[in-house]
């Protein structure tokens, strides 16, 4: 299998690797996938409560190059967006940007799930306050 130049670039120079404090009420954490399936993504966002703007995004991914690239790209796109705008990111946008082959589409689905899961975690935390 050959990877697109953009996938290779994200794999070689991943953006925003790392972790945010999951106990921070301003941080939403999404962990999706499973080790048995060969993909686990952890995506975290830090949201400004007043403006609803995502000020920081970090990821860690266990998975193939396309899974790493999908989550790396997602953090790049999330930074500076509002929560509402972030909800509009579709897996197909990721497929298109990274030229993912059909066998790797599930990587983009996982990244979209991770975004939604991180936002849901943040919103749950805010409701509990």
């Amino acid at each position, binding site marked *: 299998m050959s990877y697109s130049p953009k996938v290779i670039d994200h794999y070689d120079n991943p953006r925003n690797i790392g972790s945010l404090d999951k106990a921070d009420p301003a941080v939403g954490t999404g962990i999706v996938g499973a*080790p048995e399936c060969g993909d*686990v*993504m*952890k995506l975290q966002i830090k949201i400004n409560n007043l403006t609803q703007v995502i000020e920081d995004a970090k*990821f860690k*991914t266990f*998975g*193939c190059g396309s*899974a790493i690239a999908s989550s790396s790209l997602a953090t790049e796109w999330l930074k500076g967006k509002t929560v509402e705008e972030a909800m509009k990111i579709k897996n197909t946008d990721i497929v298109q940007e990274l030229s993912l082959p059909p066998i790797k589409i*599930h990587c983009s689905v996982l990244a979209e799930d991770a975004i939604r899961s991180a936002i849901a975690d943040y919103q749950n935390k805010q409701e509990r306050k």
Partner: protein
Amino acid sequence: MGKACELAQDEMHRENLKVKELRDRLEKRIFAELDEVHLNGHPTERLSNNLNVSFAFVEGESLMMGIKNIAVSSGSACTTASLEPSYVLRALGVTEDLAHTSIRFGLGRFNTVEEVDYTADQVINTVKRLREMSPLYEMAKEGIDIKTVNWANQH
């Protein structure tokens, strides 16, 4: 045919020992310099050119992508190009999560010590780099047993 048999008889034993030495050199470096690595297959009763290792918390395909210029396989020979982990490893009793982290190194009579050392360097560096970005490695370091986690979102 007779000549081929004669050559084989002459060279097979010697070549076999040479390949085994190279294989053992690679194995020793990997196991000395990385934690959480698992040898797949019998420790001694296996092909002398074969080394199959699971690098826990690092997905096999991403490791292959990092060790450029080196030809290895992340599945069994029969499952190359599919996303399924090797059913040979599964049959050997390797759990599914570890099967996703396996790499099969196949050595040949024309490989050199330099190539083996280069491979060991590349593998060790790439595993370390990928573990730094593995959420599973992070969990393990925090003392969380990934087998007890309820992985809700399965694909």
